[in-house]
């Protein structure tokens, strides 16, 4: 045992840059032996990059790390494992057809592929670990038979089996039910008390406050502060850390436009749905959007926003509830009906869902009107009309590309978004649903996209803006709704918005006293 006072693991002045982005800048933090240390921050604050550095996946461009007081330079994830650092990933890395014990043994030297395989001994070890940390799991069960919660336990045991002293959990509760989350919290504290150190990555304020001994808050890639604060409102303002008045679209402009909003164009009532993993994703969402206004849905990713917009576009079926567009009820699970009713949708996954990368810009712009004249002269389509329409829209929306016949896969992120907006805003939409409109765009493109959204609202479209970027929501919205765990916790006018309160709501805290 090294000096007991040295932190189990520590990072000093770590900076990591990617082309165009500084993911971590001058981050310093340390994890003591026997503590649960939370990394708190919004999406894109640099939590995942930092954990990838700690586990040897990335090397920092600047700064250094120490394990138990000794400087280390991890060349690969294997080095980190040797140093006793293990990671429990958000997306499990298990082989579904292998048993629990086989998955745990993989890559440890008792490798079933590499020979020297004593399954009985491995199973005994697994049982031993699972009993001492209250992680019940049957070592002989096949992974595909297990629930998500059980699979996560296998991931945890896998790390413990390798004698990790520092365990990093990347958003571990994202896939768990509230009860499972509570139980996991107790397990983390048990592990800490046994002399291990836990790094707990989360954006959920309540969890962080109740489980963590200390919290390091990351914001825009920087470590803002390390604190043993467990007051959620103090943590909220550290995480959000911004001033409501410092936004771009002036409050006056928003107030002015708010006075011009018209009739309700989109009515969402008591919407329920399950997500991909079969867990509840939406639990009674109700929301109205009126003509001429921008309604911003704020919230940390994974709280049901994706499911909500996909249901509006017909890409996902709702369990119950109703959606009406200008009074007409939307067919559940039809992608053509919303198009007919004038619901435009700009998805977050622009290339994968919004565009056909091998088709030309003009063809992509015709994706939603190729069925009707003038583009179609059934059963034919008129390529010349498609191309002419493409040229017009390219000019109107300032898409920069060699020509309208350029495949969209060759476009930059900003131009991709402009192609999408051009298609979705032409053809007289009533409602525009847009998810993370400025994600991955440079500053200039962001400004253009924001300008287009404001134009759309001013022309009478009801805009539903779903974004994890609170600045963006504050800058554009007439009204703001905050989503957390499948519910809209509160909705308020932009004028009444208070960053700290939004931060609390995003972290699941209904009021400051909670």
């Amino acid at each position: 045992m090294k000096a007991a006072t040295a932190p189990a693991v520590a990072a000093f002045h770590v900076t990591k840059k990617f082309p165009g982005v500084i993911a971590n800048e001058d981050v310093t933090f340390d994890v003591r032996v026997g503590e649960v240390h939370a990394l708190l921050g919004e999406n894109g604050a640099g939590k995942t990059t930092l954990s990838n550095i700690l586990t040897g996946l990335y090397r920092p461009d600047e700064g250094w790390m120490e394990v138990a007081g000794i400087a280390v330079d991890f060349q690969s994830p294997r080095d980190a494992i040797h140093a006793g650092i293990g990671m429990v990933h958000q997306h499990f890395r298990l082989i579904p057809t292998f048993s629990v014990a086989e998955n745990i043994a993989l890559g440890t030297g008792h490798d079933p592929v590499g020979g020297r395989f004593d399954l009985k001994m491995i199973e005994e070890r697994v049982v031993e670990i699972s009993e001492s940390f209250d992680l019940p799991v049957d070592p002989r069960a096949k992974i595909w038979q297990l629930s998500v919660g059980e699979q996560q336990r296998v991931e945890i045991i896998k790390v413990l089996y390798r004698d990790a002293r520092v365990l990093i959990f990347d958003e571990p509760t994202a896939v768990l039910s509230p009860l499972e989350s509570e139980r996991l919290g107790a397990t983390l504290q048990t592990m800490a008390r046994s002399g291990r150190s836990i790094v707990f990555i989360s954006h959920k304020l309540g969890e962080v406050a109740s489980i963590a001994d200390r919290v390091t808050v990351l914001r825009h890639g920087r470590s803002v502060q390390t604190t043993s604060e467990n007051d959620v409102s103090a943590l909220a303002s550290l995480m959000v850390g911004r001033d409501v008045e410092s936004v771009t679209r002036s409050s006056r402009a928003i107030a002015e436009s708010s006075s011009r909003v018209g009739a309700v164009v989109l009515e969402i009532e008591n919407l329920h749905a399950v997500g991909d993993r079969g867990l509840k994703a939406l639990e009674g969402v109700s929301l109205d959007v009126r003509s001429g206004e921008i309604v911003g849905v704020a919230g940390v990713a994974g709280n049901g926003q994706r499911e909500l917009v996909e249901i509006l576009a017909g890409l996902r079926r709702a369990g119950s509830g109703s959606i009406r567009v200008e009074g007409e009820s939307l067919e559940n699970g039809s992608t053509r009906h919303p198009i007919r009713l004038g619901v435009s949708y700009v998805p977050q996954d622009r290339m994968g869902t919004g565009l056909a990368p091998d088709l030309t810009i003009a063809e992509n712009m015709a994706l939603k009107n190729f069925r009707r004249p003038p583009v179609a002269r059934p059963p034919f389509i008129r390529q010349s009309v498609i191309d002419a329409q493409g040229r017009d829209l390219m000019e109107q929306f300032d898409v920069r590309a060699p020509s309208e016949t350029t495949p969209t896969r060759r476009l930059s992120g900003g131009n991709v978004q402009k192609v999408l907006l051009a298609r979705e805003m032409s053809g007289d939409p009533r409602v525009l649903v847009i998810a993370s409109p400025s994600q991955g765009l440079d500053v200039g493109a962001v400004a253009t996209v924001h300008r287009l959204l404001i134009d759309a609202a001013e022309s009478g479209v009801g805009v539903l803006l779903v974004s994890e970027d609170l600045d963006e929501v504050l800058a554009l919205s007439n009204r703001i709704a905050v989503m957390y765990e499948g519910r809209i916790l509160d909705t308020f006018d932009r004028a009444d918005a208070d960053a700290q309160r939004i931060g609390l709501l995003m972290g699941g805290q209904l009021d400051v006293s909670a």
Partner: protein
Amino acid sequence: MSRFGFRLEPRSYLPKWLPWAVPVGSFLAALLVGAIVLFATGQNALSVYGRILDRAFLSEGAFTGTLISATPLLFTGLCAAVAFRIGFFNIGGEGQFVMGAIFGSGIALKLGVDAPGIVSVAAMVVFGAVGGGLWGLIPGILKARFRTNEIITSLMLNYVAAVIATYLIFDSNSFWRELTGSGAVFPKGKILPTGSWWPNLDFGSIVVPFGFVLGMVIAAWLYVLQRKTRFGFEMRVVGGAPTTARYAGMKPARIVVAVAALSGALAGIGGAADIGNFRHVLDPKGLQQSGFGYAGIVVAALARLNPVAVVFVAVLLGGITNAGYALRGPDFPSGLVGVLQGLILFCTLGGEVLARYRITRSVRTPMNASALESA
């Protein structure tokens, strides 16, 4: 891969000539490698290629023979091309071809000697399409409904079709089987009434089988379907981006089923044409030996899935096959023709990689380099 200092890098820009230069270059490369093989087996490559050219295209009646060999390849090539275009990997052209042959010969026998020729021929086309189409529909529906892998289901159905054909002629007293005369002793199929034999169009020195003409018309129709119609537009979106297709209000599952049936129908017409134009009898062994369904995949790949190009590639490979018959002899094993065809496929598919990627010296990033050193 980076360990060897080379890696494949996706091309960001494709020059206009590249998609055409690559298959031509691949074909030439195949000839070059083929020359080595020929040299190794004691053949004079130049004279062999000369003889292939002569027997395939130049000498008296050679081109007619080439078109006869090309006709089934034309249909199975279209079958693969249209399905692969939407990412439905129909390997079942073989079985769909056989089912087309069974249905086509069945209706011709049923209509008998009294039916007018034009009725018999038209009925064979329709029934061939239905037989192959149904056989193609099975993997299509399975894929759309249960997401089964169409490569496996369509491939397995080839064996089922082959066994059905064998059963009809060898293991049962079916309607297709000749039970009188020598047929009572040696199992064989009934000969189709001559009225149902498909015509050959005579252009003096070249005789063009009706099946080939039909195939050309269908190829042109497919080209228009894919390039000019709404359905073709949807096919292109579904093929490249199924999620986007759904998002844009299309129904990818329906399109997959429709194209699977269309693809099977094309091979089925090929089967009917094979019987109507050439064999005039359901001949399970002959069908199995020719392997037209699999050769069609080669045709489609060489034609880069373009239906019009399929016509030319079918003629090219038909010529090589046709010349192969002529070349075969005591000093030229028939397997060598197969080797040449295999080399062409290998080089084409290899060339396809070069069309999409380019080979670069890998620049080791600091992290890669250190990971290698520590490994």
